[in-house]
């Protein structure tokens, strides 16, 4: 089954809203009406999220019940850190950037700035 990050987000939203252990049946029932998803799909998505370390799980009768490892805000903070780390630190000022240039590049930059 191809990964659908939007379905994963929708499932996580349901779990965060509920703030309690939910089985796949519970999650399926609470997904927004416009998202009609098969029970087995929900089960697969929950298992995938558990393998990714985003959910805890415990036995609930014949099924598993799931609970997010982090709160929504903790997850947002972690994701923000991940995004900024991946996208790079962009707070380098022009002066610092200019210091990294060779002499010819600096001359070229000076000419460009003078033409502005």
């Amino acid at each position, binding site marked *: 089954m191809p990964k659908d*990050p*939007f379905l994963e*987000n929708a499932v*996580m*939203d349901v779990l*965060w809203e509920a703030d309690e252990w939910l089985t796949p049946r519970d999650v399926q029932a609470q997904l927004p009406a416009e998202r009609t998803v098969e029970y087995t799909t929900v089960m697969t998505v929950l298992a995938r999220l558990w393998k990714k370390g985003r959910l805890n799980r415990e036995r609930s009768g014949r099924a598993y019940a799931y609970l997010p490892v982090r709160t*929504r805000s903790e*997850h*947002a903070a972690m*994701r*923000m850190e*991940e*995004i*900024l780390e*991946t*996208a*790079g*630190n*962009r*707070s*380098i000022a*022009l002066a*610092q*950037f200019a210091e*990294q*240039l060779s002499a010819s*590049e600096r001359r*070229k*930059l000076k000419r*460009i*700035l003078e*033409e*502005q």
Partner: protein
Amino acid sequence: MFSEALIVATVGLVAMPLVARRVRTAFRPVELTRYNAVTMSSGVVLLFVALVVCAAPAIIALGGGSVLDRHFFPGDAVVGWLSAATAATLIATMVIGYRRVRRVEARLRIESSIGDHFKLSRYDLVVLSTRQPVAYAIGGRHAQVVITSGLLDQLSVRELVSVVEHEAAHISLHHRLHLTLIGMIEPAASWFLPVRRLVEAFRFALEHAADSRTSDRSATRRALLAVSGAPAVAGVAAFTAGNVIDRLDALVGENAPPRATTRALMYASAMILGGISLATLIHFWL
């Protein structure tokens, strides 16, 4: 002689973006990206075929077969096994690169629970609340242009509009495919300097094309200066991916018409190199 000609021609094709960068004013910005993509990808494919053809005799000899021998380049075992090793390394590098690109893309795609999302016609504009000035685009079916409140603080409205226009251009020009191609060869850049130069030339062309699609060039220049110096991110189109000086230079000299003679020479060179590669392969196969 034929095998040497084939290798030289295919490597020459792969390296055409390096030459194209030096004569970039011969091309229109978007045309340059397409030229690079076609020459490099066809060069890589032909190079791989050439390596397989050189490696085949040695590998077939392992199994004791000789039926297909006449269709492949003659060569001793050293050439054969070297070609096999190079082909295997090429494949492994490209698979590693491809998976890294997809991983980075997944990490940088912003889920709906984070930031503010504004649905526009071709993409979602996502604003993240953080002091660091960041701007990048993620292509694909659910395209996103991501900026931060730190960027909003640092730039004027016109500069910000330029940044968003630049990122949106990466999406409308389908640069995701080009970035995937770059990402697939990028792992080799860490141990092979010419590949690093090739990647830089390719990235410059993409950023230059996106710059050319902004409506206010001087605002684009100012924005580029304001947030310059950031490293490139594998597989993602980001506003400040290297090549800052060349991009500034290109924005200043934007109005010059492409040089027809140089352009014709570049296309002719690519066709000759491609033709030599194909002709050599076909000649030996027959």
